[in-house]
């Protein structure tokens, strides 16, 4: 059976950063990712990222992936990568992880430590006919458009004005697709204001306190009914018909934590982090002494934060495996936390700070 010092599950910004940090400190690393290519969400992001220069702000998402992959290439001797490979099971008694490559090749690996960087999965919204062809999640639309170069339709109704709904609307406009409207249940956009301004000035209406109630059509989407909601979140007024051939749901993400449940990690429901997440210490270690997590799998946030969390987790593993001494570990940990605190400062970071506060303990009684 294959053995390794560190198994990183998921090769998005968090997983890649964990692999880089651990490998650069001398760990032997295996990275597995379900997708055909590494990079996670980054490879679908054609817009320039927010954040600070040190987390590559101002660079387009897919180019950030390229930068990380180039760095990984330099660590080739210590890092092995398996794409099209899903980590499916964790055996508590032996610590073995079962992986499936290509949907037919099942193999096992025994790592000494694991970083779970599995990202997130999309939430969906219940409404009449939401199973009609032409109703998509935002992730599917991004994959179609930005990975395969296929537009989903001619005219889209976007549901949700968080960053994903706003950014995907902009990407649709860039691809020459009309955006009929963005409907948002809340009384204000929840994404960044500048992202909204960007689509507003191109003529896209943002209908606050509105929701979709039905998709129209026999075999595919041929329109949608939307309606306003009042202060008590009850439908109000006359429904309004929207002409569209595509409906895109961008109504939030939930951390992907299946393997952490399997491993028996202590889990908490933290609304601010958008679902169940593992309780962790300040080096991202879960209650299981051999398992760390980072990125959206540790709470829905941003790629910028995911990269720093990945760094911290990789550093923690390197320390636990005695690749770096306590002094250097403490020093670097301090630097990374400063960056993380910076990203989470201010009013937009308040929710995250509150969520992280609920599930972070100073240190587990391990070692």
């Amino acid at each position, binding site marked *: 059976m294959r053995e390794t010092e560190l198994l990183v599950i998921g090769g998005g910004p968090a997983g890649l950063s964990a692999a880089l940090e651990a490998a650069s400190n001398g760990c032997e690393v295996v990275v597995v990712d379900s997708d055909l290519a590494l990079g996670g969400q980054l490879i679908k992001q054609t817009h*320039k990222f927010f954040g*600070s220069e040190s987390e590559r*702000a101002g660079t387009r998402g897919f180019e950030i992936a390229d930068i990380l992959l180039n760095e990984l290439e330099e660590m080739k001797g210590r890092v092995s990568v398996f794409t099209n490979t899903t980590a499916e099971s964790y055996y508590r008694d032996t610590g073995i992880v079962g992986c499936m490559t290509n949907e037919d090749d099942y193999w096992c690996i025994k790592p000494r430590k694991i970083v779970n960087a599995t990202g997130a999965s999309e939430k969906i919204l219940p409404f009449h006919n939401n199973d009609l062809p032409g109703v998509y999640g935002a992730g599917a639309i991004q994959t179609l458009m930005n990975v395969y170069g296929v537009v989903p339709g001619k005219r889209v109704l976007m549901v949700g004005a968080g960053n994903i709904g706003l950014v995907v609307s902009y990407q649709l406009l860039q691809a020459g697709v009309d955006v009929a409207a963005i409907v948002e249940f809340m009384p204000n956009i929840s994404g960044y204001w500048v992202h909204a*301004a*960007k689509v507003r000035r191109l003529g896209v209406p943002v209908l606050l306190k509105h929701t979709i109630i039905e998709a129209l059509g026999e075999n595919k989407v041929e329109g949608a009914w939307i309606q306003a909601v009042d202060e008590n979140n009850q439908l109000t007024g006359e429904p309004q018909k929207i002409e569209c051939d595509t409906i895109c749901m961008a109504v939030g993400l939930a951390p992907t934590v299946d393997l952490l449940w399997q491993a028996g990690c202590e889990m908490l429901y933290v609304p601010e982090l958008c679902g169940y997440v593992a309780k962790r210490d300040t080096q991202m270690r879960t209650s299981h002494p051999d398992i760390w997590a980072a990125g959206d799998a540790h709470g829905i946030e941003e790629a910028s934060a995911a990269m720093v969390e990945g760094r911290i987790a990789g550093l923690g593993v390197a320390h636990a495996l005695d690749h770096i001494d306590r002094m250097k570990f403490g020093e670097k940990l301090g630097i990374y936390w400063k960056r993380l605190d910076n*990203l989470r400062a*201010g009013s937009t970071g308040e929710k995250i700070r509150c969520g992280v506060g609920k599930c972070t303990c100073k240190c587990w009684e391990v070692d």
Partner: protein
Amino acid sequence: MTNEEKLYNSGVLTEKRPGAILPPRELWEKKKNGLVIIECPQEIPCNPCYSSCPTGAILPFEKIIHTPKIDYSKCIGCALCVASCPGLACFVVDLTYGSEEEALMKLPYELLPVPEKGEEVDCLSRIGEIVAKGKVVEVTEPRKDRTKVVHVVVPRELVDDIRAIRVVK
């Protein structure tokens, strides 16, 4: 909620606020090449405007989530921030350009088709309404990263309304 608040909450600037102000008029009127207008009124963790500014006109961020502050005396209207801002929230306006009725705007542009020099384009307001015709005099790509900066001549009295262009073909 007032209509103004509703509009603002949906991404439309309705009045000046911290992070979204106009340059001081007197300096602006005579500054060749123009001065920057940034419309970034929300505290978000982002600073490429500052790090792209070659003259220090965009002041260092004490905290990365602060909204941008500008020392207009140092701004040279180079539009590097226009090309760098991930939010497309920076615009340069040159009031010294052309006749009394004209002004030059340097606007970020990431759509297709790319307008050509000399082309007439629709000028769009903050809610996408066509408010004027403008003439493109230059298209640059300062960072060679596919974000274009379109230099367009617009009616001077509309520099606080026009925020985008659309190619008409």
